[in-house]
């Protein structure tokens, strides 16, 4: 995981229009560019699959290689933590309430998410999945 994250950090140093890094071998897209298929069904009904819902609705920023992961990796490393803590799924200090608050209120570079972006039922499942500190 560490090597992968360092690879992602190197990618960040590339600019939007910069050359492809010569290093990466042929392979599938990084996780943030290939999220799982959204679960079907009523988005307003309670769901237990917080992991999939997180990856679908938050993944383009918060899976490996995404903008949010890149910024958080930098922040967590500056706080003396290991780079894998840049991925929200690896954090153990988040509470469900904190997750809900950041999603609805936004924080720094992250805009507030609407209920179309993520419904209350979906957010409940995501908060449970990420909120390992309770």
């Amino acid at each position, binding site marked *: 995981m560490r090597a992968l994250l360092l690879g992602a950090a190197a*990618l*960040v*140093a*590339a*600019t*939007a*229009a*910069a*050359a*492809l*890094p*010569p290093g*990466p*071998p*042929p*392979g*599938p*897209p*990084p996780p*943030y*560019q*290939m*999220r799982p*298929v959204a679960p079907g069904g009523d988005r*307003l009904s309670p769901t237990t699959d917080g992991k999939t819902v997180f990856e679908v609705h938050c993944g*383009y*920023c918060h899976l490996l*290689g*995404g*903008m949010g992961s*890149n*910024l958080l990796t930098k922040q967590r490393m500056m706080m003396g933590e290991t780079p894998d803590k840049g991925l929200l799924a690896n954090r153990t200090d988040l509470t469900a309430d904190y997750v809900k608050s950041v999603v*609805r*209120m*936004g924080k*720094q*570079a992250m*805009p*507030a*998410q*609407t*209920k*179309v*972006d993520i*419904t209350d039922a979906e957010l409940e499942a995501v908060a449970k999945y990420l909120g390992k500190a309770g």
Partner: protein
Amino acid sequence: MKLHLPPRVSPKAFNAMLTASAGVVGKDWVMASDADRDAYSDVYAPGSAEEWPASAAIAPASVEEVRAIVRLANEHKTPLWPVARGKNLGYGTAAPRLAGSIVLDLGRMNKILELDAKLAYCVVEPGVGFFDLYEAVQREKLPLWLSVPGNAWGSVLGNALEHGIGYTPYGLHARNLCGIEAVLPDGDLVRTGMGAMAGNPSWHLFPMSYGPTFDLAFSQSNLGVVTKAGLWMQPAPESSLELVWDIPQAEDIGWVIDTIAPLKISGLIDQNVFIPSWLGKMVLKGQRKDFWDKPGAIPEWRVQELLKEHKLGYWQVALRLYGEESVVKAKAEIVKAAMKRNLPAEPAEHWWHPGDYIHGVEITMGIPSAVPLQMSDWIGGRGAHMGFSPVVPATGKHVLDQMARGRKIIADFDVDFYASFTIGGRFANNVNMLMYDRDNAEEVAKMRKLFDALIKETAKAGYAEYRTHLGWMDPVMDTFDFNDHALRRFGEKVKNALDPNGVIAPGKQGIWPAAYANARGGQA
């Protein structure tokens, strides 16, 4: 955010609209709490988000629901502000021009209706994002490429309808639109082009109508709500070659444009060529304070030091060619010879062939990413940006004049100069990125004055913006002054004929319906 009612709408009438709308879309998809209003505000607002407040948001899931909501808006005289996914960052996000408008959030309408590799097009609803379309192409392993903007978090259709640009041969996104379905302000439903005939299979293939062609009349427009559209896509090429030159001096942009634009116009280069200045590279390397810790603009001597330290030119040309390898090789020799007339250094060359790694941050290959938004971290705090984006003819003289003018004005305000020119053919889009911390009131006030000055001085020189933030939609429309603002007068005649109650996006791009004409020029 507290409730701002639409003009002349009582709390009772407003609640009646919401109650009736809940009967159409379901109560959970009518969102009118303070927190909901915050979520639909301009996240990058230069100042208080309450300058452009939505009163509520309604999220329909189908064309029929959109039609019903539009009819209700007429009945209750409540203006709607349609957004596709509401990620128009830097231009207002999802927030409305007229205070109290109800955001019509089309994000739930997110179906990819067709994805045709043979004729290279798709048909999508407004809620389909660039990531969604990219992933669908990858899953089906189709030989199709997208054209994406710098921030690909938003909607494919929304970006095209707002005249967004990308950096591939399909980079003029509005030009890729072919065949639109739109709900008109009275709730009627129209299909343009060959789609005007029920069941016509050429709807998304032939770009004109029988008679007047209205597709682009629905772009940057308040004449209807686009509910689906066809979009041409790029067939995956057999190979691609990127040529990268670092261009040493700011003034070199003149010969660069005079070298590349003729090759673009002739068709030898087919992509939109993006030429960012050095700061475009630096913003992803860290925070501003890591490189210059004083509040004013980074002085020229430090700029030169940074260019040296980070081995950057003032500009970078990362030009990409696409197609059969033998053709790409031949084109590359012509482009290299043309560049060599002014720059002896050979370019870095990066070949791509099918099966090679393609993913990552590569907008010239249509790979979606939100990573460029990391520039919001450059300033720190609640980092935000606005782009001042005039269009100039693609000649060295025009581009140098525009750069000198923009650079001087920006320097006079003691702000860092971060510009790019994108050669789209006979024109170049010049985006001047202004980055600020939303919580620094003094800085925000300075940016607003700077934006005013840029519009005014650029218009004096004869140029205008192609797209702008909510707060400047009227001033920019004012710059289109031919024959006593004939374009605006024409737009408003059409608007009033189609939308007598002015319910669809009043004030969008400076087009005000008679019903809200007195809101023109107002902050909100």
